């Protein structure tokens, strides 16, 4: 493998990882945008999605369904994981966040942290402490160009991630409910005076954000071959860094931030001691918060309220 091929390969990996971070970051940014709370449990919801994915996909594979209906079984896997985690997300909102809507920010934040610990340990009890292997449904075949390769699985995942992000953007920009969500994020009392059911728009946010997180969870499982109960933690920090970098509350910002964080991480691991790659993410996070808390594409509005 020569140099161009190596760099090209790293770029592919960067875009791939970045898209996954972006999907998770969207969940943070949307929830933060609407209730100004870091949903600490988001990392666990992502992990739950990955677990549902492995459970469903294993079952489908052992039934021989994956061989006969490949695309359909992927749709079922992603669909079930996203649907289930969306329900989970709404439950988290109802149990831990809704009762605290008028409380201090510290209380809400601690409640979110409590939920995160609770879910993560619930999964540990149920699924054990060791890795669970994902069925390798894609194999290693793929495209090769200029010495770099991209597997069909990666292509599928990238396309899906892209499609989900476009769909989200369309939903938020064009539909009535999407616009109501933005209105709620910008001014809750006014939204209510216009007859917008604020509780419902918040619930919608907790369907979409965790749903996207679950899709990212299945993607991670498919690509890296294993899931574990505590994998949400590191993804959470990365995705949160992405959301902050892009400007919290901004959907395009989360996408951009995800790509940058993914890129930096992959390039660091490729050219510099990879054990330190996580330190770079944290450093970026701290630097952005220090020098430009509104992020690359964010407005100053959310920061003023922090």
């Amino acid at each position, binding site marked *: 493998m020569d140099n161009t091929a190596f760099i090209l390969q790293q770029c592919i990996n960067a875009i791939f990882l970045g898209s996954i971070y972006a999907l998770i970051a969207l969940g943070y940014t949307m929830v933060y945008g609407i209730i100004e709370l870091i949903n600490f449990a988001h990392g666990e919801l992502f992990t739950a999605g990955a677990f549902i994915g492995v459970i469903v996909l294993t079952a489908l594979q052992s039934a021989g369904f994956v061989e006969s209906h490949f695309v359909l079984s992927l749709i079922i896997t992603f669909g079930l994981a996203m649907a289930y985690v969306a329900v989970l997300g709404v439950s988290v909102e109802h149990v831990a966040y809704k009762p605290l809507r008028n409380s201090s920010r510290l209380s809400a934040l601690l409640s979110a942290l409590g939920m995160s610990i609770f879910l993560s340990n619930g999964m540990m009890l149920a699924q054990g402490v060791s890795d669970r292997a994902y069925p390798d449904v894609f194999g290693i075949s793929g495209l090769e160009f200029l010495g770099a390769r991209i597997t069909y699985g990666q292509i599928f995942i990238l396309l899906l991630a892209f499609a989900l992000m476009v769909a989200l953007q369309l939903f938020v920009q064009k539909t009535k409910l999407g616009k109501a969500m933005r209105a709620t994020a*910008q001014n809750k*009392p006014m939204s209510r005076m216009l*007859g917008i059911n604020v509780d419902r728009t918040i619930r919608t946010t907790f369907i979409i954000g965790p749903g996207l997180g679950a899709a990212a969870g299945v993607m991670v499982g498919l690509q890296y071959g294993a899931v574990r109960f505590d994998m949400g933690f590191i993804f959470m920090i990365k995705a949160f860094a992405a959301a902050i970098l892009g400007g919290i509350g901004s959907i395009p910002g989360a996408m951009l931030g995800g790509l940058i964080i993914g890129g930096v991480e992959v390039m660091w691991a490729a050219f510099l001691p990879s054990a330190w790659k996580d330190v770079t993410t944290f450093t970026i996070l701290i630097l952005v918060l220090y020098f430009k808390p509104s992020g690359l594409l964010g*407005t100053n*509005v959310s920061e003023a309220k922090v």
Partner: protein
Amino acid sequence: MAEPILEMRDVHTYYGNIHALKGISCTVAQGDIVCLIGANGAGKSTTLMTIFAQPRARKGQIFFKGEPIHKLTTEQIAARGVAQSPEGRQIFPRMTVMENLEMGAYMRNDKEGILKDLDYVFDLFPVLKDRRNQTGGTLSGGEQQMLAIARAMMSKPDLLLLDEPSLGLAPKLVERIFETIIAINKEGTTIFLVEQNAHIALTNSHTGYVMETGQIVLEDQAQKLLTNEEVRKAYLGED
């Protein structure tokens, strides 16, 4: 006097421990323009917000079209046909003028009616039509005021609450706004407005209420209040 569309009976509102409204009673007759005047901090805006249960009245009753609404949620009150252009305008800063207006029509599902009303508010405020794709945050104060009123109009309310429509506007624009308010009223919308600019408010209203420190101290036909000795001294700046 026509049927009251809104009636407040002995309404008390608190902010924490601060007793902001100390027993407000007032009626707004169907089809009228009613104004509430008073000094800064008298509780005028609180009165309007209390109608929307933000904050909810701790004591007293509020009737809209004869039905009690003081136990309903803000959304439910809006759905009954009340709209407000609130204090500080409360435009959605990161949504376009168009989207702000669409949010005004959030509760409606009649597409044609919405389009018709959109034309109507663009007729009333042509500048909004020019700025339809600009975000709310980029508008000038006067434009935001117009947008707030237009947005409230988009829900086709039976009762429109206006909080200081003249605030921060050039005198010429103030006149324009009040002309528009009268036009809206002529179309059949009852208007309850709060003003510090007592003169223009009373000149353009049917009935007026005067508020001082959380209580209503005077009520009469607007014309009579204009000539009332106390009002002239305290609010019209005349001797």
